[in-house]
Structure formats: C-alpha cells, structure tokens
C-alpha cells in the first residue's frame, strides 16, 4: 500500500475532493427547503466527519483483535493512531453538530441521541489514553489498551441505542435502511465530501503510523545504548 500512492498525493487527493465537495454543496446542490438556508451546508462536512470518526474506531477495533492474536506491535500502533484520530474527528462532529444545532434549533446543546452518543464516545476514548498512561510495561499496556478498545467499540452502538430511551430528539434522519433521503444533486456533493474525508483519515493514519514507528525505533536505539 505504501508504494501504491505517495503520502503527499493522498493528502492532495483528499484536499481536492473536500474542496470540490464544498464547492458543489454551495453551487450545485439545492438550497435546503427549511428555514436554515446556507447554514444547512455544514451537513456536507458534519455527516462525513461523523462517519469517518466511526470508521477510525472500527479500524482500532480490528487492530485490537489482531494485536491480541499476534502480539505484534504494529497493530498496537495502528490502534493508538486510529483512536487518536477518531477522537479528533469526534470532537469535530460535536463542534459542527453544535453549530448546526444553533442554526437549526436555536440551541448550542440538545440531549439528542446522536450528539449525546458522540459526547460519550469522546469520554470513552479519552479514557483509553488515560489507561495507556498508567501502565508502564509496554506489552501489558498494549494488551490492556486492546481489550479496552474492543469493549469500547462494542459499547458505541449500544450507547446509541440506549440514548433512544430518552425523549425523542430533533436530529433529522437522513440516511435510513430504505434510502438516503437525498435528491441526486445533494448526494453527489455529500458523496464526494465523504470520500475526501475518508482519504484524509487514511492519509493521516499513514503519516501518524510513520511517526509512531520512528518514535519506537528511537526508544529502542536509546535503550540499546543504555540511555
């Protein structure tokens, strides 16, 4: 995979797609029928960011299982990197969600199932880093982190389901099992933004993995010279 596309090319492709998606959202997609007007355009970033965040946590889940099976450090690195990025994206989901909420419903915060789920997800994956910080031995740290990453990812859909027990929220349901609920011109912009955001995640994961690998090698070298 490393040979297939160079890192700058991946970032560039993500950038081009994200900008194209945004331009299309403003110039090509129809204006929202509700009173939101241009504020609704944040949807074209908000939803892709949310899906990318969940994708990052999904990657960490798979990496955790692979780590427990193989005890290979590269899966632990992938776990850390994807959770860190997933957390950044989750915070962005909440930020864009709150901006949208203020524009659409007139309030910065609403205890709405999806927003609440992402808030809890942020706490959950922050705890992952707290857990990592209090285990000194490397292998043990990676093992505990993997166990926690598995449990945490299982908890995400459960949390989302549970928040539905609260009184119904105001969040629009755009994508359901029966279709996307979007006209074609909306879907094109949305889809391009989504691919762009996913590529951005892949590019960031790749870059961060390189950094983590270097960090590990530096630590090993320091160790070998008795530092």
């Amino acid at each position, binding site marked *: 995979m490393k040979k297939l596309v160079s890192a700058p090319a991946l970032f560039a492709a993500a950038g081009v797609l994200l900008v194209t998606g945004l331009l299309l959202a403003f110039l090509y997609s129809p204006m929202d029928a509700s009173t939101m007007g241009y504020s609704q355009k944040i949807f074209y970033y908000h939803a892709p960011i949310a899906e990318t965040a969940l994708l990052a946590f999904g990657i960490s889940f798979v990496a955790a299982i692979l780590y*427990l099976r193989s005890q290979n450090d590269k899966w632990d690195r992938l776990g850390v990197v994807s959770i860190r990025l997933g957390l950044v994206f989750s915070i962005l989901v909440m930020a864009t969600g709150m901006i949208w909420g203020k524009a659409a419903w007139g309030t910065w915060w609403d205890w709405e199932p999806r927003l609440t789920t992402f808030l*809890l997800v942020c*706490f*959950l994956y922050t*705890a992952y880093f*707290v*857990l990592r910080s*209090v*285990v*000194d031995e490397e292998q*043990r740290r990676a*093992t*505990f982190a*993997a*166990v*926690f990453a*598995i*449990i*945490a990812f*299982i*908890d995400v859909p*459960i*949390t989302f*389901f*549970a*928040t539905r*027990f*609260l009184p119904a929220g105001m969040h629009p349901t755009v994508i359901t099992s029966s279709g996307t609920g979007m006209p074609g011109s909306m879907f094109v912009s949305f889809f391009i933004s989504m691919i762009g955001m996913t590529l951005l995640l892949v590019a960031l994961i790749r870059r961060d993995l390189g950094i983590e690998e270097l960090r590990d090698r530096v630590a090993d070298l320091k160790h070998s010279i008795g530092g």
Partner: protein
Amino acid sequence: MTGWRQFMAILRKDLIRELRTREMIISMILFVLLAMVIFHYAFGVKEDVDLTYFTGGMLWVTFIFAMLLGLNRSFAQEQDERCLDGLLLCPVDRVTIFFAKTAGNLIFLLIIQVVAVPVFTLFFVHRGYGSDIVLFVVVLLLADVGICALGTLLATISMNTRSRDLLLPIIFLPLIVPLLIAATAATTTIFATGASFGVLGTRLLFLLGFDAVFMVAAYGTYDFAIGE
C-alpha cells in the same frame, strides 16, 4: 464439572473473607444510606417537592458508585496479600476466575440492595409498587449482572495499572452509561406510574442484551485482562 467446583471454591473464598471482615459490605451500605440523605437535601429545594421522577436516577447512581467502592476493594485485597498470584498459579481457567469474581460481586451488590431498596422506598417512593415487584426485581437483576460483569472485567485491568482505583471510574462510567439509562428509565416508570412487562419490553430486552454482549466480550478478553 471441575470448572464448577473451581468456580464454587473461589466464590466461597471471597464470601468467607468478606463475611469475616465485613469491611466492604458495611462501607457500601453506609455509603448508599448517606447518599440518600444527601439526595434529600440536594433535591428537596422546596417543601413538598415531588421527587418521583428522579427516583430511578437516584437509585442507580447510588448503586453504581457503591459498586465502584466494592469493585476496587475486591481486587485491592487480592493484590495486597498477593492472593492473586496464588490464584493464577493454580490450574484454574482464567475465565472461571472471572465468573466467580462476578458472582461474588453480584452477591455483595444484592446484599446492599436488600437493605437499601426498602429504605429508599420509605424515603422517596410515595406510590405503592407491590403489584410491580416482580418486574422491579427483574430490572434489578438484569442491571446488576451487567454492572458486575463489566465492573469485574475493568477492575481486573485497573488493579494491574499504576493508578489502580483512580482509573476504574474513568474507564467504567462511560461504558456503563447505556445500562444506566435503560435501568433508570425502567425503574422510574415502575416507581412513578407502574408498568407491565409489555410496557418495559424494549428496556428489559436491552438490559438482557447488554448482559449477554459484555459477558461474551469478557469471556473472550479476560485471559488478556488478568495478565500473566
């Protein structure tokens, strides 16, 4: 069969140790009762205020925090006396240790609840819920199993870290929130208006699903959590 005997032996050990010292149960009961007094003053903002719609939340928040005390204690003792090393040296399946520990914690939590629920009802619940008692016990049991299973798994991890009891609430609370939401909603409905199995169906199924999912997850990961 040997698995069952090992399970009973570990459970018996935990129960005997606790019944001899009683330090964990007594602190948990005191904590729960004190929390109720605090709740009364925290929420009784004016005379004759109706707390009915807070009762489910008050009850489960108390139990979860009490359980945090208990979970920390149950493993701290194992480590202080290096009991756990002995346990790990025995030819016992790690998962058996998990189930025995979970069962022990469940029994302690149930003992707390046998004392706390009548007092709580006396203090805060103004409506008789005798006809819904079976339903209430089902909610209680389903939620307890989830709390104890997940709690035992995470307490095992946290006791093996540098910060021990400081870490447990941070990793346990965000994971237990879904169960708390369902249990609170079900309990409040029972206390406030009364309910039937039909009305609470989704919540009960959810609690059951939560228990099953985390039991399986713990079964799959406990070997790694307890370490070498």
